């Protein structure tokens, strides 16, 4: 049901030429995804998606729209080539899912490798009842360190791209 809504919203985003409406629909899409994550037992992921995906992404995109304008021109040429590429790729992916373990199957390979150890031992080893937190901060702490490095790099990149612009403008205006 929720998945159906997600498809409807995504198709609406494709059709819309008004970028403002498209960006707002992306926010709604993220909130729907967060609801879906709750129904799939991933509460931590749900509130991160609601705060970061629906909140910060939407604000960033709206800020960009304020700088670059909000109307999309009509794409030139016919859409059959992109459509063919998409359909062929989609068909290949559907073929690949036929071998996937069924939804909710407790014996799927993903549940039998390292996850049982986290589920059984992490409450005793770390003293944190929430297993997602203990895996994130303790067992896979280096992943989280890498994540913060990525954010730092992105932050530096954004500052260099947009901060340098103001200096250029100042130099342009200087001689006048």
């Amino acid at each position: 049901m929720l998945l159906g809504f997600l498809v409807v919203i995504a198709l609406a985003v494709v059709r819309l030429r008004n970028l403002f409406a498209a960006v707002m629909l992306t926010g709604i899409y993220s909130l729907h995804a967060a609801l879906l994550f709750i129904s799939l037992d991933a509460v931590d992921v749900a509130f991160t998606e609601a705060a970061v995906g629906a909140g910060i992404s939407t604000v960033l995109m709206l800020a960009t729209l304020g700088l670059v304008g909000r109307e999309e021109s009509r794409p030139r040429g016919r859409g059959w080539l992109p459509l063919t590429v998409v359909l062929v790729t989609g068909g290949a992916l559907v073929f690949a899912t036929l071998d996937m373990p069924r939804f909710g199957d407790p014996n799927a390979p993903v549940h039998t490798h390292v996850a049982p150890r986290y589920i059984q031992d992490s409450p005793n080893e770390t003293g944190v009842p929430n297993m997602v937190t203990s895996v994130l901060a303790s067992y896979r702490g280096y992943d989280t360190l890498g994540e913060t490095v990525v954010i730092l790099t992105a932050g530096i990149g954004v500052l260099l791209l947009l901060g340098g612009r103001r200096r250029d403008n100042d130099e342009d205006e200087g001689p006048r």
Partner: protein
Amino acid sequence: MSALGLYNYEIVIVLMMTGFYVVIRSPNLVKKIVGLNIFQTSVFILYISMGKVADGTAPIVMEGARAYSNPLPHVLILTAIVVGVATTALGLALVVRIREAYGSVDEEAIQKQDRVG
């Protein structure tokens, strides 16, 4: 039952291909980033669907829980969401710069200027 068991994955592929179509078809750079976000969220849904266990509860220690969903995909996707916002921010900053250099965020207008120059 077997068709229903793959329902989540099929919808994920539809969403993924919708995002992909926007990325390769739309001439507008901001719209391309919107498409990239749709694609990205569909991958999150794929991972979280794989982590779900039938009759499971959220992976927080609780009295009387029979099974917990797999916490590992949740951790990976938490990281991916935050990294996704970082890449979105960087992409949008590039779009703003392109707009200043070319006066447009339309792909065809930019390519025309490049050919002339």
